C-alpha cells in the first residue's frame, strides 16, 4: 500500500485525474481517499491505462449506461466519488458530467472573492495609515509584542492563510474554465451591424423581448449582444419569438435542450444574481413558440429575482437609518453637507433602490400576465 499526501487535490480536479492515470500507468491503483488527512491510498498491481473521473454531487449515482460502458466506482465518500474506466479511450462512448463540481467551485470562488475583497480593503486602509504616519512626522509610540515569538508565528499564519486563498482563487478559476460548459454564442458576424443600447436590460427582460421582437419585425436581425449594446444586421422582416431567460445556475443540459428544440442562443452571461440567456426562434402562423409551456415557471423566476434583489434593500435601509446621525455630526463639526461621502451614499441608495424597483415592476407585470392567461376565456 502506498500513501501520497496531496492537500489541494480538489482545486483542479482534471489535474488530479491526470495524476491518477499516471499512477495507474505505473501499476499503482487508487484504493481510497482520506478526505480529512488528504492522503491518497494506492494498491500495487499491473500497469494499466485507466481514465479517472472525480465528481461531486448531492446524490452520487453511477448511471447504468456508464456501467455498461466500463465505468465503475473506485471510491465514494459523502458527495465525493471517483469513477474509473480501464477500456481503451476509443471504446469509451459515454462520459460523466461535471455540473455538481462546477457549482461547488463557483461557490468557493465566490467565497474567495469575498475574502480577497476584505484583504484588499484592509491592506489599503493600513497603507493609508502607515503613509500618513511616515510622512506627517507625528510622534509615534511603538508597543512591544507581549511574547516575541508571537509576531513571526502570526505573520507566518497570515501569509499562509492568504497565500492559500489567493492560490485557490486562481486555480479554481482555471479549473472551472477547463471543466466549463457554457457555449460561445457571440460568433463573429461578417458585414455591417447597426448598434442600439439598452441599459440594465436584465432587470426588465419582458420589455427586452418585446423590443427585440419589434425590431426583427422591421428587419433588424440580432447578431451581437453585450452588457449595454445590441448589434443588428439588416435583413428581411421576420416573425420571431424572443425569450430572455433567467437561471440561478446553468449546465450543459440547459443549452442542449433548448438548442435541440429549435432555439438559437444569442447571449449567455452572469448578471447578479444568476445567469441570463437570450434565445430566439423564428415561426410561421399565429402561435408563437414558448420556452415555458406553463406560465408559472416564468412567474417563479420573477419571484426569485425579486427576493434576491430585495436583499439590496438591506444596505439601503442601513444607509438611510444612519443618515440622520451622519448629517447631525457633520453639521456639528461644521463640515459642508455637500461632500464626497454623502454623494457616494446617495448614489448607492438611488442605484440599489432602482434595481429593486425594476425587479418589482417586472414581477408585477409577469404576475398580471400570468393571472390573465390562467383565468383565460371561460
Amino acid at each position: 500500500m502506498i500513501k501520497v499526501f496531496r492537500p489541494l487535490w480538489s482545486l483542479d480536479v482534471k489535474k488530479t485525474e491526470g495524476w491518477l492515470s499516471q499512477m495507474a500507468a505505473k501499476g499503482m491503483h487508487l484504493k481510497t481517499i482520506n478526505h480529512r488527512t488528504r492522503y491518497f491510498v494506492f494498491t500495487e498491481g499491473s500497469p494499466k491505462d485507466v481514465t479517472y473521473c472525480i465528481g461531486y454531487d448531492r446524490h452520487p449515482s453511477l448511471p447504468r449506461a456508464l456501467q455498461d460502458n466500463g465505468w465503475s466506482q473506485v471510491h465514494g465518500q459523502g458527495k465525493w466519488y471517483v469513477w474509473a474506466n480501464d477500456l481503451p479511450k476509443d471504446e469509451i462512448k459515454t462520459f460523466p458530467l461535471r455540473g455538481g463540481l462546477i457549482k461547488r467551485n463557483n461557490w468557493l470562488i465566490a467565497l474567495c472573492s469575498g475574502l480577497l475583497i476584505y484583504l484588499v480593503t484592509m491592506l489599503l486602509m493600513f497603507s493609508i495609515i502607515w503613509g500618513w504616519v511616515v510622512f506627517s512626522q507625528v510622534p509615534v509610540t511603538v508597543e512591544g509584542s507581549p511574547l516575541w515569538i508571537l509576531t513571526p508565528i502570526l505573520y507566518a499564519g497570515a501569509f499562509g492563510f492568504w497565500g492559500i486563498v489567493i492560490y485557490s482563487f486562481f486555480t479554481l478559476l482555471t479549473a472551472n474554465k477547463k471543466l466549463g460548459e457554457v457555449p460561445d454564442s457571440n460568433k463573429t458576424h461578417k458585414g455591417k451591424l447597426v448598434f442600439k443600447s439598452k441599459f440594465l436590460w436584465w432587470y426588465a427582460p419582458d420589455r427586452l423581448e418585446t423590443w427585440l421582437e419589434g425590431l426583427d419585425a422591421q428587419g433588424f436581425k440580432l447578431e451581437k449582444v453585450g452588457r449595454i449594446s445590441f448589434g443588428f444586421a439588416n435583413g428581411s422582416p421576420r416573425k420571431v419569438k424572443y425569450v430572455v431567460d433567467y437561471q440561478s445556475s446553468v449546465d450543459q443540459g440547459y443549452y442542449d435542450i433548448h438548442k435541440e428544440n429549435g432555439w438559437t442562443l444569442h447571449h449567455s452571461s452572469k448578471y447578479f444574481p444568476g445567469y441570463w440567456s437570450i434565445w430566439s426562434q423564428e415561426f410561421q402562423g399565429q402561435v408563437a413558440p414558448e420556452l415555458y409551456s406553463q406560465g408559472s415557471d416564468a412567474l417563479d423566476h420573477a419571484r426569485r429575482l425579486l427576493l434576491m434583489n430585495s436583499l439590496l434593500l438591506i444596505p439601503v435601509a442601513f444607509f438611510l437609518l444612519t443618515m440622520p446621525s451622519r448629517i447631525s455630526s457633520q453639521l456639528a463639526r461644521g463640515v459642508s453637507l455637500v461632500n464626497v461621502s454623502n454623494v457616494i451614499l446617495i448614489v448607492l441608495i438611488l442605484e440599489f433602490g432602482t434595481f429593486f424597483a425594476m425587479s418589482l415592476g417586472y414581477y408585477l407585470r409577469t404576475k398580471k400576465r400570468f393571472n390573465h392567461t390562467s383565468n383565460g376565456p371561460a
Partner: protein
Amino acid sequence: MNIEKILKSYLPMTETAFYILLSLSEPRHGYGIVKHVDELTNSRISLGSGTVYGTLTKMQRDGIITVYADERRKTIYEITPVGKALILAEIERIKELSQNAQINEVKFRD
C-alpha cells in the same frame, strides 16, 4: 435520498412530472423527452423545453434522475433506482384510480 421523503414530496405527481419520468423508461436526450411525451399523449401535452428542463433539474437535485454525456457530448437523462421506486408507486396509484373509474363510469352515463 430517503425514499419516504421523495414519495411524500412527489405523490400525487403532476401530469408534467409523471410523463417526463415515464418517458425515461430508457435514457433520453431532453429533446427526446419532449418528443416522446408529445407522442404518448397524442399532442395533448406539448411541453416547452424550459418547463422540461426545470422539472429535470429539480428531479436531479432530489436524486430521482441522473445525467451523463454521449459521444457527441450531449446531455442524456437516466432514471435512478429511487426514481424507479417513485414511478412504480405512482403507477399503482393511477391503476387504483383507473379501476374504480371504469367500474363506476356506467352509473354516470344516462
